[in-house]
């Protein structure tokens, strides 16, 4: 089954990449962009068909290694 994991930096933590992109967009005339955040998406293909087991396994992977709890939140979606 395919799992989509979205890892986002917490709003209170700076995102220098997002800040730089916002500045570049403003230089291109898109001054109305107020905030840019660059997040990360990871797709996993996991063997098996137990949706809830796969979902909890993916959550476990996020807690173990895929996300840094100091900085990031994550969400897991089993796409099927």
């Amino acid at each position, binding site marked *: 089954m395919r799992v989509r994991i979205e890892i986002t930096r*917490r709003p*209170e*933590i*700076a*995102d*220098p*990449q997002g800040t*730089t992109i916002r500045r570049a967009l403003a230089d291109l005339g898109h001054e109305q962009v107020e905030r840019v955040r660059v997040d990360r998406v990871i797709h996993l293909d996991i063997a098996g068909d137990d949706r809830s087991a796969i979902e909890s396994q993916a959550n476990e992977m996020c807690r173990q*290694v*895929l996300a*840094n709890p*100091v*900085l990031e939140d994550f969400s897991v979606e089993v796409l099927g």
Partner: protein
Amino acid sequence: MRTAVVQFPGTNCEHDVVEAVTALGGSAELVWHRDTDLSDFDGAILPGGFAHGDYLRTGAIARFSPVMTEVFRLADSGAPVLGICNGFQILCEAGLLPGALIANRDLAFICRLVEVEVADTDTVLTRTATVGQRIRIPLNSYEGNWVDPTRRGRVVLRYVDDPNGSQQQAAAVANDRGNVVGVMPHPERAIHDFLGSSDGNLLLEGFLHSLAPA
């Protein structure tokens, strides 16, 4: 008193660290990241580089290397554990130091001598220094911007200017006990005047003195 210098795949400052420690009369030996016994060592240094390619996040994979079990044991026992640059990032990912390191504020790779001020001398890196003392050591990093939402970290060295946006201008951070320290600039690259500075010796001497039994 022996120091283990931990080499991960992608570490690239390990020989500089061995050279610097040896030049100060210390004994340092490379250990591979798969080694599982550091019982012959009295402390450990995690040098700079790009451990495991820095994939996912800097230090994220390295913290799971087998040798880290022994690094945790040394840290728990109160032995000196020092992470330099990428080693600092690994110690944060491992939870041995608070916070995390993100990209520099201006997204520039910074490679120059920086001036830092000693903020705390009760750590294995700074015990031979004095508070307020200024030293010059080279910074060489892209992800050197330390953030600590918990504000638990003890700032050991502060940048005199603000090169990368690091919280509290921290260039080095310690755990509560002061035996685990991460430093972003490289003391081992500032050990001779002909390298631009020999101030790094002061910090490495602090580390070597900390190896002695309390």
